[in-house]
């Protein structure tokens, strides 16, 4: 009987085109909270999916209580007492909260395999109350907000009284108060003897909770430390591989006249009275917790979901953004958050992807011209430095960073004034990150006005001239120059309800 409840040695997982996990190690003691840290794309989520049996590792062994295990499907993992709270909430919008909690391990009568709704509802209510949720267990999942769904996810993990609980960025969408609540629960569980793997970007989470921390970088294992033995600085180095300041290239764009002004923009249910202005060569950050409405603001600016209040002034004249094509025509470009679903057509070659937005401009009377297309595609793909053999390589075969570069190239095809970048470096390895930041700075230098939406504090701080912080669909702070600091942003992003009420 080993001292570790869970042990993973030399795990490797390969996806077509990407090496998601490369010979990583992880050891978990019972009754400990073990933080797993690393940038986006460091392979944390994949690692979790391997533990929970969603993926099967290509190499490496997994020991549970010293015995080798090999989960073929999530149920086996669940039976072995492993539960996970996934970063992207995986729910059934059409079903009730209770069902979401118990799906896959419903309470059933011993004799007739009848589902015991009463017990399940009671149990669900109990869990929800434990988590301090205010909604009924009979509510339809689709009716809940992201944070509420997050709580359901936690309840789901609690419902199987698991010995190992994995929390994949559970606090990402929670305010400090909610986080506190979560910490309390986590500690309860730990004291009850459960082992918790806690994945988070937030250092405070780790310092507050974890006793050990393991760091991945670029899908490789970097090391494991006792939390009280490692300094913040060392940790960052471990995570990003170099001093954080070096992560951001010097930018030498001179700021020109105002190109975009937004006045009292609002969309029912998502955001309200958003006002800010943007000048040429300027990079402003739009940040806040996940679901604070920043992405929705950009969607509306780009005309995906039209806003219903306020006005947008581009180059001095009011424009009504009703459709993406129209917005692009008037000079607003958008790099969407999810490049796989919104940015690229994965089954297409790099070239076709790049030229898609501007086919009209390089066509003759509606007829496409191969030569023009290939020229443009080649030019831009090389400009943003896509790593590939030919421009016919499928987008799906590229790594995250290169895919993102292709999406950038799409923006360069049309002549724009404002470029909105939603999580431009999400799931991008460090090297590519740097390249992308360079592209951004170059664009700024060329006189584009740039809006960066990001939840990565360092990125915002390192790249932006000014920062607009959002919470609950409102801008709660406008920071610029020296007073852009992690503390200031967090404070504005997670102020207490009381103050937020005051702002109403």
């Amino acid at each position, binding site marked *: 009987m080993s001292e570790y409840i869970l042990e993973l040695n030399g795990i490797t997982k390969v996806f077509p085109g990407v090496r998601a996990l490369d010979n990583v190690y992880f050891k978990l003691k019972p009754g400990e909270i073990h933080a797993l840290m690393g940038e986006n794309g460091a392979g944390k989520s994949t690692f979790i999916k391997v533990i*929970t049996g*969603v993926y099967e590792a290509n190499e490496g062994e997994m020991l549970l209580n010293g015995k080798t295990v090999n989960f073929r499907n999530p149920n086996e993992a669940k039976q072995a007492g492993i539960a996970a709270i996934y970063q992207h909430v995986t729910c059934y919008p059409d*079903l009730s909260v209770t069902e979401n909690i118990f799906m896959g391990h419903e309470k059933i009568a011993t004799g007739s*395999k009848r589902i015991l709704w009463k017990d399940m509802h009671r149990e669900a209510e109990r869990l929800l109350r434990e988590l301090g949720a205010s909604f*009924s267990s009979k*509510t339809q999942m689709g009716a809940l*907000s992201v944070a509420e769904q997050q709580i359901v996810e936690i309840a789901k993990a609690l419902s199987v009284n698991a010995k190992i609980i994995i929390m994949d960025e559970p606090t990402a969408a929670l305010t400090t108060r*909610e986080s506190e609540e979560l910490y309390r629960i986590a500690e309860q569980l730990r004291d009850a003897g459960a082992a918790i793997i806690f994945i988070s970007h937030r250092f405070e989470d780790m310092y507050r909770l974890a006793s050990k921390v393991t760091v991945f970088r670029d899908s490789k294992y970097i090391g494991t430390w006792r939390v009280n033995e490692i300094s913040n600085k060392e940790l960052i180095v471990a995570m990003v591989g170099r001093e954080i300041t070096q992560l951001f290239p010097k930018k030498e764009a001179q700021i020109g006249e105002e190109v975009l002004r937004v006045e009292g923009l609002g969309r029912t*249910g998502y955001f309200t009275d958003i006002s800010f202005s943007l000048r040429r060569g300027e990079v402003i950050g739009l940040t806040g*917790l996940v679901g604070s409405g920043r992405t929705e603001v950009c969607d509306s600016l780009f005309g995906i979901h039209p806003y219903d209040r306020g006005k947008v002034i581009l180059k001095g004249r009011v424009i009504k953004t009703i459709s993406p094509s129209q917005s692009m025509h008037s000079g607003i470009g958008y790099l969407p958050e999810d490049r796989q679903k919104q940015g690229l057509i994965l089954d297409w070659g790099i070239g076709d992807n790049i030229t898609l937005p501007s086919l009209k401009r390089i066509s003759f009377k509606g007829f496409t011209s191969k030569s023009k297309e290939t020229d443009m595609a080649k030019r831009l793909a090389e400009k943003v430095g896509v790593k590939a053999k030919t421009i016919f390589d499928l987008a799906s075969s590229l790594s995250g960073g290169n895919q993102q570069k292709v999406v950038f190239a799409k923006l360069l095809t049309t002549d724009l004034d404002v470029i909105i970048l939603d999580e431009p470096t999400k799931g991008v390895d460090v090297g590519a990150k740097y390249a992308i930041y360079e592209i951004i700075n170059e664009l700024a230098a060329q006189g584009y006005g740039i809006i960066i939406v990001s939840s990565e504090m360092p990125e915002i701080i390192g790249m932006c001239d000014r920062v607009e912080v959002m919470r609950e669909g409102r801008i709660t702070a406008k920071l610029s120059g020296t007073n852009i600091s992690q503390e200031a942003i967090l404070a504005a992003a997670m102020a207490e309800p009381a103050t937020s009420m005051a702002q109403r």
Partner: protein
Amino acid sequence: MESRNVGSFVMPMGQQTQANKNKRTISSYVVQFRELGLLFFILLLAVLIQMRNPSFLTWENINDLITNTAILSILAVGMMLVIITRGIDLSIGATLALSGMISAMVVSHFPQVHPLLVLLLGTGIGLVCGGGLGYLVAKIGILPIIATLGMMNVFRGLTYLISDGKWVSAHQMTTSFKFLGTGTLFRINHLIWIALFIYLIAYYFMGHTRTGRQIYAVGSNPEAARISGIRPERTLWLVYVIMGGLSGMAGVLWVSKFASAQGDTASGYELSVIAACVVGGVSIAGGVGKLSGVLLGAILLGIINNALPLINVSAFWQMGIQGSIILAAVLLNAIVKRGVDRNHLMRRKV
């Protein structure tokens, strides 16, 4: 994100239950709305028809109506499962004909066989057809509409081949067999009893067994289903098997009711079944669908078929009217759904 939610942690108990209440009312109101709306629509229709022809709301006519709707409603249950999993099955008419023809021929050749045995036989044939179909859809992953389209041709063709163009007619069937579809128990037709029975089972299956709930899960979010350890392929396959079994049974009942088996039995019937489901609020997007709704949908279609002749609508108008009613119901559902979503947004205080 919602201040209500943020505040929730400091909310005293009383307020919480308060919050629960009004939330429950919203959602429950929404969930109920479809069925209620449909019910209202049906009642309205009934009244109108009654005004045109007083013999509509007579015990006899209602009995006929339900009897004629029984088979449709049985098939609708299966179709509901299929549609919940984001599929569709065009082959049920052909399956029905095939099993009906085979069992009828069995009856005519071996009169001594017990009707219930024939019923089982027919169901079995249906199960086999459904199994094959399910394999194509679930294991190989052919789009349901295409797979069922192809198999529809195959089953229909087989029916003709087996029967060699002949019909099996009333005098070749044993009275006991015909009794299956026409006999009554407590003055109520067997078909109705069978339909009731199936609805009870389905109610239990869909509401109170894991497999039943998994069907909803797979329809609602296949990826999440995989993560919660459900095997979508298996569920999908099962759904088509059930559908097949039901259409097989329906085939026997059909033949027994009309005391005749033809090659072209129930051709095009699948459309009315799908219509019944869609009208009953089963969402093609998957994951949504309730037995009560489907039952009402089936009844609505039954009323249309039963009443249009009653109120002397010209034969040439009937098709148009049916189509319009279906479209209307579908659009109504969509609009209601949107109302729901708006409701959810309004709950956010932003």
